[in-house]
C-alpha cells in the first residue's frame, strides 16, 4: 500500500485511540481532582495512585445485567446511546491537533496531524455537535419513565438554546481569522505582537472566549448547567433506566464532548499548537497541555459551583448570553472595519 495512505490511516487511528483513552483518563482525573479538592484522596487502591480505576469501572459495567424496561421502545432505547457516542467521536473529525509533519523525513510531503482538514471545518464541528442532542432526547423519551422524560426534554431545550450563543461567538472568530477552516484559524494565530505577546485570539476576543466557554459547558451538560442529569433532583435524568454498556456510553459521550469543546477552544482562542519559543514540531505537546488545562478548568468548575436551577439556566442563556454574544459580534465587526477599511 502507499506509504502516505498508510501513515494517514495511522494518524486517524491514533486520534481515535487517544480519544478513547481521553475518556478513560478523564474518569480518573475527575475523581482524583474532586477528591483532592475535597481534601481526601480519590481512588488509590487499584493500581499505582488509582491509575487502573477506569479499567475496573469499565469491567464492572461490562459485567452488569443489560436491562430494558418493558414499556421502553425497543429500537430507540438502544439507538440513543449509540447516537450520542457517534456524534461525540465524529465531531472531533475536523479538529486539528498538530502542525504538519513528515515523520522524520519518511515522507516527501508533510501530512497534517488531524483526521481531516475541510475548508468548512468549523461548521462540521458545529453540525455534528447539534446532532448530539438527539441521543439525549431519544434516551429520555424511549425510557418510558417520567424522570427520564423530564431530563431528556430539559437537556435538549438547554442544548439548543446555548447553541445560538456558541455559534455567534464562533462567527466573531471566523470574522477575525478570515476562514472557516480550523487549521487556518490556528495558523492565523502564529507569531507575536510587540515581540512578546502571542497572537492568540483570546486577547482580541476576551468576551467571545467567555461566551464560548460558558456555552461549551452548557452544551456538554456539565458543571453548573447539569440540571438535566442532576443527581440530587432527577434520580439520574435521562439515563435513569440505563444499565451496563448502554449506560457506559453516555458518560463516555459526555467526556468526549468535553474533550472536543476543550480542543476547539484551544484551537480557536488559545492558539492551538503555537506557543512562543516552542518549535512547531512539538506543537502537539503544547496542544495537549492546553486541552488538559481546559479540562482541569471544567472539572474544577463542576466541583466548586452550585447548580443552576432550570429556569435560571434558560433565562441566563436567552436573556444574557445571547445578547452578549451578538453585541460581541457587532463590536468585533465595527472594530475590524475601523482598522481595515
Amino acid at each position, binding site marked *: 500500500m502507499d506509504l502516505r495512505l498508510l501513515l494517514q490511516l495511522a494518524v486517524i487511528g491514533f486520534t481515535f485511540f487517544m480519544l478513547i483513552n481521553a475518556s478513560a483518563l478523564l474518569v480518573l482525573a475527575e475523581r482524583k481532582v474532586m477528591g483532592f479538592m475535597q481534601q481526601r484522596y480519590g481512588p488509590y487502591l487499584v493500581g499505582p495512585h488509582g491509575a487502573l480505576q477506569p479499567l475496573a469501572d469499565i469491567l464492572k459495567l461490562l459485567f452488569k445485567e443489560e436491562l430494558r424496561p418493558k414499556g421502553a421502545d425497543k429500537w430507540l432505547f438502544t439507538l440513543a446511546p449509540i447516537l450520542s457516542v457517534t456524534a461525540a467521536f465524529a465531531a472531533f473529525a475536523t479538529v486539528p491537533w498538530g502542525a504538519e509533519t513528515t515523520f522524520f523525513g519518511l515522507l516527501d510531503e508533510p501530512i497534517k496531524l488531524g483526521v481531516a482538514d475541510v475548508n*468548512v471545518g468549523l461548521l462540521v464541528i*458545529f453540525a455534528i455537535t447539534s446532532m448530539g442532542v438527539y441521543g439525549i432526547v431519544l434516551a429520555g423519551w424511549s425510557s418510558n419513565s417520567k424522570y427520564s422524560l423530564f431530563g431528556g426534554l430539559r437537556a435538549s431545550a438547554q442544548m439548543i438554546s446555548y447553541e445560538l450563543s456558541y455559534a455567534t461567538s464562533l462567527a466573531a472568530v471566523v470574522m477575525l481569522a478570515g476562514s472557516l477552516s480550523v487549521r487556518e484559524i490556528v495558523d492565523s494565530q502564529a507569531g507575536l505582537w510587540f515581540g512578546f505577546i502571542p497572537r492568540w485570539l483570546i486577547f482580541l476576543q476576551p468576551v467571545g472566549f467567555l461566551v464560548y466557554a460558558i456555552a461549551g459547558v452548557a452544551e456538554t451538560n456539565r458543571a453548573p448547567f447539569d440540571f438535566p442529569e442532576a443527581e440530587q433532583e432527577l434520580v439520574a435524568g435521562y439515563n435513569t433506566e440505563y444499565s451496563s454498556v448502554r449506560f457506559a456510553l453516555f458518560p463516555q459521550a459526555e467526556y468526549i464532548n468535553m474533550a472536543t469543546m476543550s480542543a476547539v477552544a484551544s484551537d480557536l482562542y488559545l492558539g492551538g499548537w503555537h506557543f512562543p519559543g516552542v518549535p512547531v514540531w512539538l506543537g502537539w505537546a503544547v496542544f495537549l497541555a492546553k486541552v488538559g488545562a481546559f479540562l482541569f478548568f471544567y472539572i474544577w468548575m463542576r466541583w466548586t459551583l452550585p447548580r443552576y436551577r432550570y429556569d435560571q439556566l434558560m433565562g441566563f442563556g436567552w436573556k444574557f448570553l445571547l445578547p452578549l454574544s451578538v453585541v460581541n459580534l457587532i463590536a468585533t465587526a465595527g472594530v475590524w472595519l475601523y482598522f481595515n477599511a
Partner: protein
Amino acid sequence: MPETLVFYLFSGLAIVASALVIGQRNPMYSVLLLVLSFAAIAGLFLQLDAPFLALALMIVYAGAIMVLFLFVVMLLNAPQEDALTWDRAHPLRHPVVTRFGTLLAVVLSVELAYALMRGNDLAQPVGSRAGGELVSSVRELGRVLFTDYMFAFEATSILILVAMVGAVILARREREPS
C-alpha cells in the same frame, strides 16, 4: 466510477428514508427517518460542490427544526393512527378506483423519468459546463448574498422575527380571566 456509486448510495438512502417517513405509523420514527433523509440529501449537496449548504441543512433542518418536531411529538404524546384509518389509507388496500389512480401515478413518474433521460441538454454530467471552484466558495456565497440578495436577506430576518412571535403567542395556554 466511485462518484456514481456514492450518488446511488446517497440518493437511494434519501428515497428509502422518505418512503419510510410516509409509511410509518409511529410519528417518532417518522421524524428520525426524516433526519436520516436529510443527512442523505446533505451528502448529495456535498457531491454537488455545495459544502456550506450541506452543513447549513444539517445545522438548521436536522439540528433544530427536527428537534422542534420531536418536542411537539413528545409533548403531545402523539397518538399513532388507529388501525382502521391506517388500513383505509394504505395505498395497496384501496378500492379498485384509487388503485387505478396509484397505477396512473406510477406511469406518470416513469414517463417523467424517461423524458428527463432523453433530453440531450440535461444528459450532460453535472460538472461538465463549469468548474466547481466558484460554486463551492463560501466567500462568493456571502458576497452574492449580501449584495445582490440584500433585500431578501433583510425580509427573511423580519419573517423569522414574525414567526417567532407568532409561534410563542399561538402555543400559549389561554388564560382564564381572573
